[in-house]
């Protein structure tokens, strides 16, 4: 269904291109060598977009969980830590965080940070506040009886979380986690400002050479669109699979 819509969009874009004198598809025309090379150049950013987004989402999920758990504690200091972290991190714009981590953090710590890791750290930090809220809501939605049953068979806190609560919570929050992954893929485009050679940066560089922003950015839009539709379909597949697991 989504792919039909996507195909429709592509057709529409090409049709527009064909009708108007302002379009110059030759820059990305795969049938001519120069266009094919440009296209390959644009697609070569895919590697870093994916690597950056997936590394950052994994770290942000781990970090988010680590921040969510204190938020559910009965200890008021741990809960306060959770609130302060979430409120502070959520208040910083991603672009600002990227710039700060890349230019500021090395000066503060004396460490050298590569563009890639600066991007990963900034994206993961920023997203972790949202992941923490998602996990907190998911864990809170699990019935109290599950904890009591776990206590009654003497499970420790960590075993209760790992074997009883989190597997159920993750099933419930999977759609929200999928959203965050999509969000992460889109936000990774911002890391282009510090020189990360991902999709958006490649497009910018090509535009500077070819002076064809309309066509090149249209290709860029389509690249993100296809990528995110594939990821969304993957998340939905996982949701269905986990649900059928539970029914047996």
């Amino acid at each position, binding site marked *: 269904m989504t792919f039909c819509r996507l195909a429709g969009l592509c057709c529409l874009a090409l049709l527009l291109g064909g009708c108007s004198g302002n379009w110059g598809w030759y820059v990305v025309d795969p049938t001519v060598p120069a266009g094919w090379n440009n296209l390959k150049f644009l697609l070569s950013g895919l590697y870093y977009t994916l690597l950056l987004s997936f590394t950052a989402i994994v770290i942000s999920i781990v970090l988010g969980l680590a921040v969510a758990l204190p938020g559910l504690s009965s200890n008021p200091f741990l809960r306060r830590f959770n609130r302060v972290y979430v409120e502070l991190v959520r208040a910083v714009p991603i672009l600002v965080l990227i710039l700060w981590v890349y230019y500021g953090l090395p000066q503060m710590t004396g460490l050298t940070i590569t563009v890639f890791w600066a991007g990963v750290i900034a994206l993961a930090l920023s997203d972790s506040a949202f992941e923490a809220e998602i996990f907190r809501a998911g864990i809170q939605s699990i019935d109290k*009886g*599950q904890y009591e*049953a776990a206590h*009654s*068979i003497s*499970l420790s806190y960590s075993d209760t979380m790992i074997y*009883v609560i989190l597997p*159920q919570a993750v*099933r419930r929050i999977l759609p929200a986690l999928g959203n965050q992954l999509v969000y992460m893929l889109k936000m990774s485009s911002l890391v282009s400002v510090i020189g990360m050679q991902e999709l958006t940066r490649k497009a910018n560089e090509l535009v500077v050479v070819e002076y064809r922003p309309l066509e090149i950015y249209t290709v860029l839009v389509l690249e993100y669109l296809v990528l995110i539709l594939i990821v969304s379909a993957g998340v939905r597949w996982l949701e269905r699979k986990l649900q059928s697991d539970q029914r*047996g």
Partner: protein
Amino acid sequence: MITVEKVSKTFGDFHALKNVSLEVLTGEKVVVCGPSGSGKSTLIRCINGLERHDDGRIEVAGNALTHTNASLRAVRASVGMVFQQFNLFPHLTVKQNLTLGPLRTRKLSQADADKLAMSYLERVRIPEQADKFPRQLSGGQQQRVAIARSLCMEPQIMLFDEPTSALDPEMINEVLDVMSELAGSGMTMICVTHEMGFAKRVADTMVFMDHGEIVEKAPPDQFFSNPGTERCRDFLSKILAH
């Protein structure tokens, strides 16, 4: 086996338990009844530390319950609990529900835990459901799985918190049968239930609670034929009337 001495518990302004004392001997079957809100569930939830008692002393199988982690673990290791809503783990199969405790806390091997699980599933007469998920089972079957899950921890004491209250009438007996069989094997049991037929057959001691107090405590024949207090007589006439 269980000593409850002058235990009090409040939830905000509500006095759930007032100065409750109860002694349960090894192998004794105690049935606790009383109107809702009388503190029966709170009492047994205090005994395995699910609720923290405010005042008084609770000792279970030689371990004083003090709400330090070590004391809670020691008490819970010797006490099994069955809940009104079963509280099975919905994402695990029946067999995985049973083996989780033995694998994680008793550190059994997978093979030993599986064998243990199957032996208790046979005891509650549903070995053929081992690989199903809880939601594929009837209420009665789910509650029997919950009983087997507790038994897999090989407790010395079993607590039942209204185990048949959430069940359809035709499923109540299959659960009571399993509980009667368990009582026959010499397990120490405290059951909160309104199944008075079961109580007459199985109980050594009947306890009647009202407003957070133990109002009456007597052997079943005396309890049912000649209750000593007006409140207890009133309650029994209401639930035994039909």
